């Protein structure tokens, strides 16, 4: 008995130290991840600061790093983002509405079809982005003969972000309680009237969140656009849907891939232009989501 009571504090002590050690390791790893983020951002800002300025933002690419600018890439990124949103938002929301509001509830009696779509979307979300580039190259660039154009790039990216938008929108629609729908039907509204006037307004912030997240993924994508042949040296701002284009990530890739340190500074400066755009979009999306999660859980 006495030996047991003597052993107890000792093993409790060992347990305590083990617990502490484990927590320290975990915190160190998390802190490490956050530190790396901070390091990444500061190293980019430090490297790019000397180049960042009005001339850089309004300039065109050049053989000389100190004269080069990102205007075509920034404008290209904005155009691609708008066009991608134009294609992916209605189709993504429409697909989500169909799957949540119609398929489950006997739309055309195609239960098996919606299950197929379900599995299919989950798989598409895991397909590497460069594969979408191959699809875009074969279908949009070659088969539909759109060439290496803004339109082909935006269509490719729209297909890429569609699963993200659909999955997010479905979750948003699911948070709308059925009692709302039933009340609307009871007042004589049709299914579409119910969706249009009751369900969509309630799910709006969730729908917007997933769209913003999808688009922020699209503007960071490089590989699929390289595959469809977006060119890296574009000395003009795209003026039509069919004109060649470049985007910021491709411009960054191009500058990183060159051996001269001058271009590396340009790449850092271009990253310093791209990242705030992205972080802003993500932050808005995350804030929006946290707000509506809170509202629904109350």
């Amino acid at each position, binding site marked *: 008995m006495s030996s047991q009571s003597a052993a107890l504090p000792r093993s409790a002590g060992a347990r305590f130290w083990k617990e502490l050690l484990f927590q320290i390791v975990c915190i160190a790893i998390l802190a490490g991840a956050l530190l790396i983020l901070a390091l990444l951002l500061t190293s980019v800002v430090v490297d790019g600061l000397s180049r960042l300025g009005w001339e850089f933002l309004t300039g065109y690419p050049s053989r000389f790093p100190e004269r080069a600018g990102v205007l075509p890439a920034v404008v290209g990124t904005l155009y691609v983002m708008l066009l991608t949103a134009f294609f992916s938002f209605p189709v993504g929301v429409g697909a989500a509405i169909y799957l949540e509001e119609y398929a489950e509830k006997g739309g055309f009696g195609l239960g098996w079809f919606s299950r197929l779509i379900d599995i299919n979307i989950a798989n598409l979300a895991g397909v590497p982005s460069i594969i979408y580039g191959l699809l875009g190259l074969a279908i949009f660039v070659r088969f539909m003969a759109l060439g290496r154009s803004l339109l082909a790039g935006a269509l490719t990216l729209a297909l890429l972000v569609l699963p993200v938008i659909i999955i997010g929108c479905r979750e948003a629609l699911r948070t709308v309680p059925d009692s709302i729908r039933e009340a609307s039907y009871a007042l004589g509204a049709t299914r579409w009237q119910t969706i249009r006037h009751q369900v969509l307004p309630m799910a709006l912030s969730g729908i917007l969140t997933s769209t913003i997240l999808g688009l922020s993924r699209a503007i960071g994508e490089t590989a699929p656009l390289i595959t469809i042949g977006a060119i890296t040296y574009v000395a003009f701002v795209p003026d039509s849907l069919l004109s060649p284009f470049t985007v910021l990530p491709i411009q960054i890739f191009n500058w990183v891939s060159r051996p001269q340190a001058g271009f590396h500074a340009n790449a850092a400066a271009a990253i310093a232009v791209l990242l705030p755009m992205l972080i802003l979009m993500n932050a808005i999306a*995350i804030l929006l989501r946290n707000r509506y999660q809170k509202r629904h859980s109350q």
Partner: protein
Amino acid sequence: MRLLPKSFKANKRERGIELFLLFCASVSILTTLGIVAVLLFETVDFFREVSIVSFFTDTEWTPLFAQKRFGIWPLLIGTILISGIAMLVALPAGLLSSLYLSEYAPDRVRRVVKPVLEILAGIPTVVYGYFALLFVTPLLQKFLPGLSGFNALSPGIVMGIMILPLVSSLSEDAMQAVPRSLREGAYALGSTNLQVSFRIVIPAAFSGITASFILAVSRAIGETMIVAIAAGQQPRLTANPLVPIETMTAYIVQVSMGDTPVGTLEYKTIFVVGMMLFLSTLVLNVLSQRLRARFREVYR
């Protein structure tokens, strides 16, 4: 009588809208069919000219040289090597950070850390590529003098950091789904936090955690820009992480950057490599979904 045509019209409108929505939902099916058709078409074409046996047995990949050899192994091994290094970083770190966030962290910490991890996940891969080539590689060269400017080690490590948030958040979801009663039972028997974590939570969430690991591998295999920037573009059959190599994804980028005419054998190779990539990630994704579905069945 006046009501009938009107409601009939409304009904028609309802049907029209439903049809449009059905079309939207079908776009995803068309995308999959498109991917499979495009890859299959060019792959079949490719194997008319190159024997499938040499594709899987030859040890050299030189489609862009005069002396063309089409052995997929250098690209496969390069992909596996880099993914392996990435997993060595992402899996333990992801598992521990998810365990900490799920079982230890106070709510205040979680509320700060989770969004930051999400932002980490939202950084474009081309930025990670810049980081690997111009920051991590020079840093590693101070400790490893034999490290060449392009190598597998640095992009592998950076890719691991990139994938960490994915592993962490999916594993944490799995741990959160473990019922409280299991934990409370263990605490009632006198277990410590650590014992509960490793003997109750991890085994109970095992299939969910495994699913997140598998998804992470699939992400690593499909990751493109980090390797295209920092790993070099030399298909080479080696397990040495210090020399330049090439992955399947980097090869597709390399060919896309050049002026390869449509219909040539070089042009078809990117679709064949794409097919390999598509199949391997598909198998992993399906496996991961199966595991997650099983996990849900047990606890809901």
